[in-house]
C-alpha cells in the first residue's frame, strides 16, 4: 500500500514537473524575474556609485553629487564620492568646475576634463582637492573604481577618492 501511494506521488510529481516545464517560457520565468526585481535589492555602490545626495544645476548641464561610498569591512576599494556631469552632449568642449561635494556651500574639488568630439575616444581628467577631505589626481581615465573620469552613454562619471584619514574619522 505504502509503495503504491509513493508511486502515485512520484508520478504526480513527474507530471507536475512537465507542467512546470511547459509554464517556464510563458509564465514562470517572468514571475521569478518579477520576484527578484521587486525584492528590494540594489547594485553594490562600488559599481552603481551609491545614492544621489543632490543635484547642482549649471547653465546647460547639471552635476549630480552622490553620497560618499565607504568600503565595508574587508572591501578592497578606497572610499570615494561619485559626481556625474549630464547630459554629456550639452557640456562645453572643456569643463573646469568647482563642485561642492558635502553640501556646506563651499567648493571641495575642481574637476577639469576636455570632452572629446568623438564619444568613443577615451576621456582623461584632473581633480584638484580644495581641502584635505579629498585626494587630487591628474590625467586619470579608468584606473580604478575609486578614481576615474569616464563617459557612460550621455554622462561623464567622475569618482573622487576620499582622504582615508579624514574619511575614517
Amino acid at each position: 500500500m505504502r509503495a503504491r501511494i509513493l508511486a502515485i506521488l512520484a508520478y504526480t510529481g513527474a507530471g507536475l514537473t512537465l507542467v512546470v516545464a511547459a509554464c517556464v517560457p510563458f509564465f514562470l520565468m517572468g514571475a521569478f524575474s518579477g520576484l527578484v526585481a521587486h525584492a528590494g535589492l540594489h547594485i553594490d555602490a562600488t559599481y552603481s556609485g551609491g545614492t544621489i545626495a543632490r543635484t547642482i544645476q549649471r547653465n546647460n548641464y547639471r552635476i549630480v553629487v552622490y553620497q560618499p561610498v565607504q568600503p565595508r569591512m574587508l572591501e578592497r576599494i578606497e572610499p570615494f564620492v561619485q559626481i556625474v556631469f549630464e547630459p554629456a552632449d550639452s557640456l562645453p568642449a572643456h569643463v573646469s568646475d568647482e563642485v561642492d561635494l558635502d553640501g556646506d556651500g563651499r567648493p571641495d574639488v575642481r574637476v577639469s576634463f576636455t570632452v572629446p568630439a568623438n564619444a568613443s575616444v577615451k576621456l582623461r581628467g584632473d581633480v584638484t582637492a580644495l581641502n584635505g577631505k579629498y585626494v587630487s589626481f591628474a590625467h586619470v581615465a579608468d584606473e580604478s573604481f575609486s578614481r576615474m573620469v569616464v563617459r557612460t552613454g550621455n554622462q561623464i562619471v567622475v569618482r573622487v577618492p576620499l582622504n582615508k584619514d579624514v574619511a575614517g574619522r
Partner: protein
Amino acid sequence: MASRSSALVRPAAFRSVGRSVLLTLPIALWSLVMFTPSLRQAGRDSHIGAVVVMLFMTTLFFLMMRTGETYRWRRIFFVALGFLFPFGFIAALVVQRGTMSIPISRMVSGDTPFCFMVTPSIILPAAFARTIIFPGSILPTASNHASIAIMIGLWFALTLVLGKAWCSYACFFGGIEEGFAAIAKRRRLHRFVTKYGHILRLIPWAILVFVVLVSAAIFEPVYCMWLCPFKAVTEFPAVRNVETAIQMGIFVALFIGLVVVLPFLTKKRTQCGFFCPFGAFQSLFNKIHLFEIRFDREKCVDCALCQTSCPTVALSKESIREGKTLLNCMKCGACVDACKKDAAVWHLKGTPVAVKPERARLLFLYGAWAMATMFGGSILANSVATMLHWLPWK
C-alpha cells in the same frame, strides 16, 4: 521493443520509426512554438537559424527515441551549444563595443550581462545587505538584456525542471570541454582520476565554500573576477593594470588547462567535475529532484564501464554497490548508455528500481529537452543567424 543491450550493438533499433515519430511529436510541436517568435522576426538569417535549430533539436530527440541512447545524441546538442555560444556572444560584444574586454565605464553603467555562474557568490550579500555584488543592472536596459532579474528568474525556473541536469542540458559552457573530451580516442590519466576521484570531486565544494565566503567578505564576485575559465571565451575585465593582467592570465591558464588539455587527456569534463563551484551548488538540487540514475544490483556485474564512462566522476565503486550515483550526477545518461547489462537505469524516486525505467527516462527527457530547446536552442539559433550574417560572400 528490443532490449537496451541490443541497442548498443548497433544497428538494431530500440523502437520502431512510427513509435519514435509519435513520441517525438510533442517536442516538434514545442520547438515550433519556441521558434515562432524568431520566424516572425524580420531577416532571412533569423528564419534560417530558427528552422535549422528546430530541425536539429527535433531530429536529436527522435534519435534518442529510436535508439534508446541518451548521452550520444545529447552530446551533439551540448557540444554545438558549447562551441556556438561563445561565437554568438563574442560577435554581439564586438558589434556593441568593438572588443571582448569590458571597460570600467561599462561596469559602472551596469552593462555587464549577468552570468548564472555568479549566482552562489551573490546570495549572502543579497540576503544580509540587500546588495548585488555584480556590475550589472537589476532590470533589463536597452544595452543589457541579460539583467540580473531576468537571468536569475530563468535559472531558477530551469532549475525547478532540471535540477543538477542543468549541467548537461542548459549550461552553455560545459559543451566546450565535452567537445574536447570527445576528440581523443584513448583515455589517459585514467588511473590517476580513478585513484584520486574521491578527492578531486570534493574540490568544487571547497571552491564553492571559498567563493561564497570570500565574496561576502570582500563584496566582490570572486569567482567571476579571479577564477572563471570561461572569461577567456566570453568577456573579461579590460587589462588596465597588473591586477587585471594577472586575472587575464589566470582565466587563460584555467581555460587551457581545465577546458582544453585535461578533458582531451582524460575524456572527462574536468572543469565541471573538479573545479566548478556553480556545478557543486547545482548538485544540492539533486536532493529534491525527482529523477535519478540507479543500478539494478541483480544485473550489475561490477565491470565499472559506467564508472569509466561518467564524465564528472559521479560514480564510485561504493556508490555502484549501493545502487546509486553520487550527489554530483548530472543525468547525462553516459553510464546508462555504456552499461551492457541494462543495470544502469533511469529512475523516478518513489517507484521501484528497474521497473519501467524507460518510462522514467521519457518523463525526464520531455522536461529536459523542452528546456534545452527553449534555452540552448534559442542560443544556437541566434549563433547560426550570426554566422550566416557574417558569411564572407554576403
